[in-house]
């Protein structure tokens, strides 16, 4: 056994399964645990997807429900609720991307320019905090601040003689609040990758630029920003791959009947149609549609990243 081990790096001989098991049976034994978990709790659910071709009735089960071919898909693409949920998911995820991408970059640039390590450390610690709070906490805090008459912001506005602003009870205001709270939650944590990218930029570049008389903002624009361009592109592509996702917890916690026009997104659709109205086949078909598009987007994003000369994502 020891011999085969030492000779391995020198000569690349194909090991047979028998030898591999003899040498590494303990490793295969360890692997059985995670494999059992994914088979029991992930793969075992895949056959359930066949219900997208059935008119699944919970009382009848898989065996008793009738096969209907593509009827379910025809039905969901005519379903106004689905189309609204799809539109909202796409629009809000793109907006999230547009608002959410530049802010962490700017913040990373500012943090990088900060010349007081203590101040930097404290502000980083504080700015990372929202990333570690649940949507239940963020949602309830936002509610305390933004609710119509007794929320803090509205109290302040009314004290100054203004009128109460329906931050979370009118759909256009809601959209802005929803997006800004999202940015607020991710802005600090989002800087980490960019800060890591900045440290790998050579210090000589900055020295040379200073000798040439480039000021702070010029250096930021011409050295730091181009230096983190690969990071920016990679993260942007990863996030583009997620544009079909929707976060149930975030949507649910910001939900109320006045803003359903915008808040009704795919995750809400799946939950309400599925577990609420027991339209199992429709909810599953929408979930499948979402997953398949998601996988395609991830694969495309990976291809694209490799095309641009970045390290692949997969």
């Amino acid at each position, binding site marked *: 056994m020891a011999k085969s*081990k*030492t000779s391995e790096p020198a000569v690349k001989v194909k090991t047979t*399964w028998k030898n*591999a098991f003899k040498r*590494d049976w*303990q*490793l295969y034994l*360890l692997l059985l*645990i*995670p*494999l059992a*978990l994914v088979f029991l*709790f*992930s793969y*075992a*659910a*895949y056959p*359930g997807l066949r*219900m997208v071709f059935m008119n699944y009735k919970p009382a009848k089960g898989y065996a008793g429900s009738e096969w209907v071919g593509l009827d379910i898909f025809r039905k969901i693409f005519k379903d106004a609720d689905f189309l609204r949920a799809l539109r909202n998911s796409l629009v809000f995820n793109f907006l999230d991307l547009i608002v959410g991408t530049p802010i962490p970059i700017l*913040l990373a640039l*500012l943090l990088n320019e900060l*010349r007081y*390590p203590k*101040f930097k450390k404290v502000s980083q610690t*504080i*700015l*990372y*905090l929202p990333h*570690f*709070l649940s949507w*239940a*906490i963020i949602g*309830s*805090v936002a*509610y*305390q601040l933004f609710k119509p008459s007794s929320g*803090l912001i509205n109290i302040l506005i009314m004290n100054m003689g203004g009128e109460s602003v329906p931050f979370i009870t009118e759909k256009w205001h809601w959209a802005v609040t929803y997006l800004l709270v999202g940015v607020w939650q991710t*802005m*600090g944590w989002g800087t*980490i*990758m960019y800060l890591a990218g*900045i*440290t790998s930029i050579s210090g000589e570049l*900055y020295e040379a630029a*200073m000798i040439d008389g480039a000021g*702070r903002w010029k250096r930021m624009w011409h050295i*730091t920003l181009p230096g983190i361009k690969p990071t920016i592109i990679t993260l942007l592509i990863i996030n583009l791959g997620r544009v079909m996702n929707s976060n*149930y917890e975030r949507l*649910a*916690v910001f939900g109320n009947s006045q803003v359903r026009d915008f808040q009704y997104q795919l995750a809400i659709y*799946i*939950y309400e149609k*599925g577990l609420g109205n027991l339209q*199992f086949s429709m*909810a*599953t078909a929408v*979930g499948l549609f979402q*997953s398949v598009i998601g996988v395609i987007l991830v694969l495309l994003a990976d291809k694209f990243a490799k095309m641009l000369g970045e390290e*692949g994502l*997969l």
Partner: protein
Amino acid sequence: MAKNKAVNTEEVTPDGSRAINKFRVSDALIMIVLALLCLTCVLPFIYLAAKSISSNNAVLAKQVYLIPKDVTFDAYVSLFKDGSMVRAMGYSVLVTAIFTALGMIACTCAAYPLSKKRLKGKKAFTFLLMVPMYFTAGLIPSYLLFKDMKLLDTMWVLIWPLIYSPYNMLIMKTYLQSTIPDSLEESAFLDGASNIQILWRIVLPLSKPIIATLSLFYAVGRWNAYADNQYYIRSDNLKMVQYKLYQMVASATEAQTTTLSEAAAVTSTPEVLQAASIMFVTIPIIIIYPFLQKYFVKGAMVGAVKG
């Protein structure tokens, strides 16, 4: 490789101009912007803290901003008397602890074998273990599966389905591949140690930093997630504390009522009680967070580099 360099982002000032330049307007500008952003993270919680220990009348009269008025801890007293939040908190701690321990076992059992270049069938196993990260069957098929497994409305439905995490496995695998030198394991192998002995005596002791980080990822992930409570749990005593808080906001948003019992509602207004409940759920995180933050940053760096 680059990631080891990147871990110490804090100390580096790439413009290297500390000694030459004096404090300038731009410095002040940057500090002001950052300070304002920090305030948006701090002030809401100071406001809630102040509100939670103010009297009902002061809150109803909208006189409480950042300083409490007529200080009283009545809301917290009724929170503890009612007991449902406190019980849910204890239950959340229990679920999170079991989840984290089992999660780390599952993660190590996957990451260690897959970190070995020589493992035959490595590609196929990695594929099988990564697919669930990108493609899931979705809510309803999972719901029906858990129903068949008699997991619905038990504590275990919050644990088993999520303890194997492809993402955490990737982070650990990357770490093992890049920090544990092959030569170390090879010499142990020559001394007659088995794979499991090598894992236990050499690899795990050298992986303490990543074990700390991933345990935190597991713990925070479980602690903060609550959608699965809504999907799979009916019994009130099996709901985690975050979900209780969510139910409270959800019902307050719609009907301005709380889910706490009437006895609690009589002694203080829902307003103060809500603030106290939010603080009750938030304070534990705020207390432990500053000590743990650096482990998260490290983990995020390792996770950024794919294996």
